[in-house]
């Protein structure tokens, strides 16, 4: 009997219709997601739905009520009882039972293993971003960093050999980083709450995962070149060219 519904039995049929997408390659790539908050929830959801099956999620925080307006995988019953990374890994696995999602409840600065194909930054402070940027760059791993502030957001794709996140930074970033530290001298970061909403979070996360799909499909040349700034209030987006800063510590011989 001739049937026409076979195409609907393939989970990734519609994705395969995009000419540059390589589903099998995406499934084989090891992806590190740093941060399991607002961006982290959206990024992991998109990664799993896009076919990524080897995902590690790092976060050291527990869930609080204010996370619930932006985090798909969190529930009221999770508040103050469970850790973000554990919940994201567990609930995201339900989207695709073949996905292996490994939670690591830890400060990213304590992570020793950097054997990944792609790193996705979903962080909330410059200090942690600089750490991830340096490790990804040193290890030659593409790094896709996302950031939001209210209706504004930014995505930057860092590819081996090109400019890195630190190349875009200046003294205001250093001052912002210094404002984050307490006077206890023990390195405890105080991170004030920034404005955040799910719509901007979803846009930025989707852009990050789309760039990851390009890299995982073997098409890094298709990645957006530079830093993309999104203004959700005005509905505008602009990509700025970024060049290597010869004074950047990551680019010293």
């Amino acid at each position, binding site marked *: 009997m001739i049937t026409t519904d076979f195409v609907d039995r393939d989970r990734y049929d519609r994705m395969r219709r995009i000419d540059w997408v390589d589903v099998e390659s995406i499934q084989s790539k090891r992806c590190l997601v740093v941060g*399991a908050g607002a961006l982290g929830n959206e990024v992991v959801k998109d990664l799993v739905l896009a076919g990524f099956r080897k995902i590690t999620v790092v976060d050291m925080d527990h869930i609080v009520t204010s996370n619930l307006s932006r985090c798909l995988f969190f529930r009221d019953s999770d508040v103050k009882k469970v850790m973000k990374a554990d919940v994201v890994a567990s609930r995201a696995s339900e989207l695709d039972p073949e996905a292996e999602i490994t939670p690591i409840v830890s400060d990213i600065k304590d992570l020793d293993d950097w054997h990944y194909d792609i790193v996705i930054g979903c962080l909330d402070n410059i200090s942690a971003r600089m750490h991830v940027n340096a490790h990804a760059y040193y290890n030659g791993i593409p790094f896709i960093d996302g950031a939001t502030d209210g209706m504004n957001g930014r995505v930057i794709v860092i590819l081996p050999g090109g400019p890195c996140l630190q190349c875009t*930074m200046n003294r205001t970033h250093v001052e912002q980083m210094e404002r984050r530290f307490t006077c206890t001298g023990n390195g405890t970061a105080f991170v004030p709450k920034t404005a955040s909403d799910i719509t901007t979070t979803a846009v930025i996360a989707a852009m990050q995962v789309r760039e990851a799909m390009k890299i995982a499909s073997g098409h890094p040349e298709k990645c957006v070149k530079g830093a993309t700034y999104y203004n959700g209030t005005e509905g505008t987006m602009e990509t700025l060219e970024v060049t290597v800063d010869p004074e950047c510590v990551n680019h010293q011989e």
Partner: protein
Amino acid sequence: MSIAITVKNVYNGSTIRMEVENDETMGDIIKSAAEYWRKEASAYILKKGKMLLRSSMTVAEAGIITDDVLEMIPDPEGGSR
């Protein structure tokens, strides 16, 4: 010789008129403008057209001329909490 430029905060529309020298850097300009907008403590990036101006780049290297308008954009930091 001083070059008169305008620095614009893209998100609040505020502008500053500034005089800069050829050997001053984009970092110097960002720092001065950020101090002017101190009430909105944030990290910023500076752009001219479609180019993100690196901190170490000088006014001469960036090809900045009189009456250029440079735009400052707050660089978002959040995403996790």
